[in-house]
């Protein structure tokens, strides 16, 4: 690991001020950043430690639930208000990583974790995300785990988070503090971005911006939601495909639906065509199958991951069936 200066931030404003240099990086749980520093992928000259900041609260305000950026993933998944009103989020968080990592990882950090594409990690390989202009090793390489939606010739990596797939489905809002001290709110589906020609940017944060809160707006999905994760082993593995499914039902009728996919794109992928298809229809297996077809219509698989298209369809149907039955609440 390269040498860095360690600085403790006493307030969010002080943290933003300390992190204004290009060399600096925020440190929260460290579960991804420290690993990347050991691999020489991340090379910050300064770490601004956020662990003493007062952003560790989950509060209910009106119909919303507001998650502090430094609340651990474990505490978020097990918070009574989250369990009761957003069980989809609890379930998605619990599907990710291991208990040790969820205890360390924070909500803000989860959003900002980087892809686990092996070409990104291997400094001997080309990777436009790591070294702009060096090429994409995965495009013509081992790309079984990679994107089927929204990729470009410069990057086919996927966003690794489970939590973020649920946050995309739940239309969360991310509050960030800027270098000028001003707050700004980013709708979750605009927080992460597609690679286009600039895959080095994972999200739409401006340099130095700090995530302070994630807001979950009220919804009527709590009774019928489900997070399904399909992976190579039963636990502690990244998703091949994951599905966050949520239904607002009036008897058999779907009043509103949410379908978001993980493991398939550079950002959590909202399957809006599937949602629109289901709206106003009956919650039947046949309709779920047609919705899944809609969701996969724009898929563009790579040389080794065509299986994700069929797997994705089946996973969507299964997740919607489970949501209809009442999820895990």
């Amino acid at each position, binding site marked *: 690991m390269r040498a*860095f200066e360690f600085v403790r931030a006493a307030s969010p404003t002080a943290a933003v001020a300390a992190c204004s240099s290009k060399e600096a990086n925020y440190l929260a749980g460290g579960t991804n950043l*420290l690993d990347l520093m050991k691999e020489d992928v991340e090379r910050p000259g300064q770490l601004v430690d956020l662990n003493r900041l007062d952003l560790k609260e989950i509060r209910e305000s009106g119909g919303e639930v507001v998650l502090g950026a430094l609340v651990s993933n474990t505490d978020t998944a097990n918070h009574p208000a989250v369990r009761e009103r957003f069980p989809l989020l609890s379930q998605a968080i*619990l599907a990710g990583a291991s*208990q040790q990592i969820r205890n360390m990882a924070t909500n803000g950090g989860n959003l900002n974790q980087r892809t686990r594409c092996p070409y990104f990690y291997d400094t001997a390989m080309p990777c436009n995300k790591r070294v702009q202009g060096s090429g994409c090793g995965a495009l013509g390489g081992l790309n079984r785990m990679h994107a089927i939606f929204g990729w470009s010739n410069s990057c086919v990596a996927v966003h690794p988070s489970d939590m973020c797939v649920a946050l995309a489905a739940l239309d969360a809002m991310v509050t960030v503090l800027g270098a000028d001290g001003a707050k700004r709110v980013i709708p979750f589906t605009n927080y992460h971005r597609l690679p286009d020609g600039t895959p080095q940017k994972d999200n739409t944060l401006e340099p130095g911006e700090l995530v302070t809160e994630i807001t979950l707006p009220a919804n009527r999905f709590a009774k019928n939601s489900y997070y399904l994760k399909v992976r190579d082993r039963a636990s*502690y593995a990244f998703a091949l495909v994951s599905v966050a499914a949520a239904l607002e039902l009036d008897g058999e009728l779907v009043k509103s639906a949410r379908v978001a996919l993980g493991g398939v794109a550079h950002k959590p992928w909202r399957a809006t065509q599937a949602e629109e298809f289901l709206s106003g229809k009956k919650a039947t297996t046949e309709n779920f199958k047609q919705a899944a077809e809609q969701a996969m219509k724009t898929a563009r698989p790579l040389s080794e991951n065509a299986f994700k298209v069929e797997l994705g369809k089946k996973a969507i149907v299964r997740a919607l069936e489970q949501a209809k039955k009442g999820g895990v609440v």
Partner: protein
Amino acid sequence: MAFDDTPSPEEMNPDELALFQELSEFGESRRFFLGQTALTGLSVFALNLLAQQEAAAQVQSEGAVLTTNPTDPGNLLSTTLNVNGKSHTLSHDSRVTLLDALREHLKMTGTKKGCDHGQCGACTVMIDGRRVLSCLTLAATCEGREVTTIEGLAEGDELHPMQRAFIKHDAFQCGYCTPGQICSAVALLKEAEEGQASYASQSLNDSGGALSDDEIRERMSGNICRCGAYPNIVKAVAEVQSGRETAQTWNFHVRVGEEGLA
């Protein structure tokens, strides 16, 4: 401190002496170590080592690789770690992880370094009662927090129930992952008691009661065992978590005619 039974330098053969000196177990500098090993007939080895270290130092000072001069790192920190109820103040490089602080600075080698990348769980310890990966925790972030390692679980000679259960159920072969497995399992007890859910939970609001084997497997999935002792690890964790004693399924085998030897 570890190595209480360390023999004195006079009792050691040259190889042992060299190794212990290198670990600075006797509080002596590398220079002294090199001088002494040369005197004790290991001069070829020592010169070789000296050459290698000088070569390494040169690579560092020529820039490019490491920007920090090793004699004046400029990133030294002082951190007070509370480990198993005892306070230790360390002066350390900012890059030192909790794992390396425990093993290399405090010589508490019970916590193991497996992958060093947060994938295997061998380095699991508890901070403020919660299990974490010490390889991905900077020592500097542990100021004022309570660290519990495998060395802190027993009460004197009385093993922690989880340690006893691991022995009873033969929950290891090589033992390298075991300290991490046990720390993880001890933390699991509290999580289950608090009603924390897992991805294997039938309901997010399940509370209390004995965990199923599937639950235990899911909750222990962050600890890898290359020997594959999983079935016995599950038995050990289940026994302590449920409070229901189960029979040990292995035994020393005594062959007919050899009873007298048993």
